[in-house]
């Protein structure tokens, strides 16, 4: 017979931790391992059927998503005699599939894997359009823009996984948004043949960085944070 040192309640013999506070039960006088059959509940755990519904929905959604590309393909082939514009529809549907349904189908979607996959299919789709329409914009424009957007998203993801403080998260988001704008600005300047300096993005980057710094400073001031919470609670 043991009592929880923290709660003062008597604990049933098979308990290893106090169910109320989680304190480990250490009774130097009772070293015998309790009989598992004497536990108040069996070890078998019933599971809610989440997977089945998820799988069912994924299959249904896949079938529904197949309808528009197939209809477009038929119209295209009947009209033009070859695959022309329907290629865009097929590509866009495939992208939507990877963006939405792949993370949904997975029980526990892996965020980094999803991000890498999304980035890859976006690049592939853009490359396909560029190749199909004989455009020269993939390497100088689409590739750097997609990669910088992915980098900004990756930075935000890392920040939200590592850091809990709201003000630090806000600072990181602001900085990432500002830097993404700068990257877009530079890429577009280079592509249009202008000198590689910041134009419009300066007006975004500067306030973003300043606000990020402000929120970093605010994060240090606990008292001020409390005051802000009091004033701006919703």
């Amino acid at each position, binding site marked *: 017979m043991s009592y929880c040192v923290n*709660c003062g309640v*008597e*604990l049933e013999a098979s308990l290893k931790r106090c*169910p109320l506070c989680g304190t480990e039960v250490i009774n130097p006088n009772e070293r015998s391992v309790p009989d598992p059959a004497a536990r108040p*509940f069996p070890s078998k755990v019933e599971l809610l059927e989440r997977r089945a519904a998820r799988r069912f929905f994924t299959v249904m959604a896949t079938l529904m998503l197949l309808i528009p590309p197939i209809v477009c393909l038929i119209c295209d082939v009947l009209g033009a005699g070859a695959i022309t514009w329907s290629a865009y529809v097929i590509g866009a549907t495939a992208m939507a599939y990877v963006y939405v349904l792949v993370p949904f189908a997975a029980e526990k979607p892996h965020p980094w894997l999803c991000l890498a996959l999304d980035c890859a299919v976006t690049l592939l789709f853009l490359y396909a359009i560029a190749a199909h329409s004989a455009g020269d914009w993939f390497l100088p424009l689409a590739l750097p823009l997609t990669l910088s957007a992915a980098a900004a998203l990756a930075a935000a993801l890392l920040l939200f996984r590592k850091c809990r403080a709201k003000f630090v998260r806000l600072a990181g988001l602001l900085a990432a948004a500002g830097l993404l704008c700068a990257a877009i600005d530079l890429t577009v300047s280079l592509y249009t043949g202008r000198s590689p300096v910041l134009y419009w993005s300066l007006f975004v980057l500067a306030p973003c960085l300043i606000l990020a710094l402000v929120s970093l400073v605010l994060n240090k001031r606990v008292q001020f944070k409390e005051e802000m919470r009091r004033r701006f609670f919703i």
Partner: protein
Amino acid sequence: MSKAEQSWMRLDNAAKIYPASMRRDWMAMFRLSATLVEPVDPEVLRAALARTLTRFPWFAVRMRRGMFWYYLEHNDAPPIVEEDVRNPCLPMRAKDSRGYAFRVRYYGNRIAVEIFHVLTDGTGGLCFLKTLVAEYLALRYGISIPRGGDVLDCDDPPDPGEMEDGFLACAGNVTRSRSEADSFHLSGTRERDGFIHVTTGVIPVNALKARAEEKGVSLTVYLTAVLILAFDAIQRRKHPLRNTPRGAKRLKPVKICVPVNLRRFFPTRTLRNFANYVNPGIEPSYGVYTLDEVLSIVMHQMGMELTPKVLGAKFTTNVRSEQNAVLRVAPLFLKDLAMRAAFYMTGDKKTATCFSNLGNASLPAEMALFVTRMEFMLGPLSRNPVAIGTLSYDGTMYLNITRTIRESDLEREFFTRLVKLGVPVQIESNQR
């Protein structure tokens, strides 16, 4: 009763909300169990259940959708008797239960019945369990158990009076508004896999009764008051900004839903749903309460509400909404939507938890020799993360707290308060 009349029945007035409000991951379930002196024999239990069902035709049903209402259709399939699990009261799937809205489980010496609230309430469920255990003991040990009271005789034909809708039978003319303020709620981390934590407090009734009698209140009032104070303390601790003189205005009321067995107040023999509730509680924004103050508040609030007049007016409101002509002709899917919305807006919001005390379970002496323990457990509530059910048997109270979140603040706050008040508590749990 003719065959045709037996083949299907309407849902009773209180049951109508349960099918409409159920979700894939939630159903209003509750569980009653009896622990015997020897391991349970599943084959004998199966035979006992088959006999018991002949006496309880409103259990031998499957729920069906009609054009306008759900209804219960007679079910001939052999009912399932299965091994118990660690996380009880999970929603039932018709295909796993052969259509039945209850399941019988066994583990070691224990027989447990988990019932979807659409069939009956705690009192009706307890009657079912007692009869099932009596049948089991009679078949297993060949003893003869005197029938009467809650232990029904399965050789008797079903009694139509036990199947009537007590609400319809006892409804008056005057209704009463249902509106009231929202209560404080616990919040916490939901278990990803839907695991339900069960913490059982085993309490000697004498010790508790002594404390309650000192204060001149009943056990239910005493425990409700301690529970209210536990929630109050948690709210003040979790929301330090509300717990300041200027922030106190934002402290939410703490109210507890206490189901009331209406059979005590109205002349009906029904064994289907016939319960209502009172929501005693305090306004923490007015200040910090002592136990004596809360005891007095709860006692008087319950005293004011627990009269046939008020209770009658309360359930008459529900009966009148059911009889509303527009609602009646609305197709079932529209009713479902409307009732789901109403349940979402009112249901669990008005109270912090539900505290259901089924009282003392007494058995005939012949049965009591074989039964060491009886328990009552509420399944999780729709939106409140904790629910509390209690039943006393043989001088011991078994108080079960079911919880869907990881944090055990309420259990700790509640049980340590009881210990501090001088009531010894033994804790059991289904912890992983």
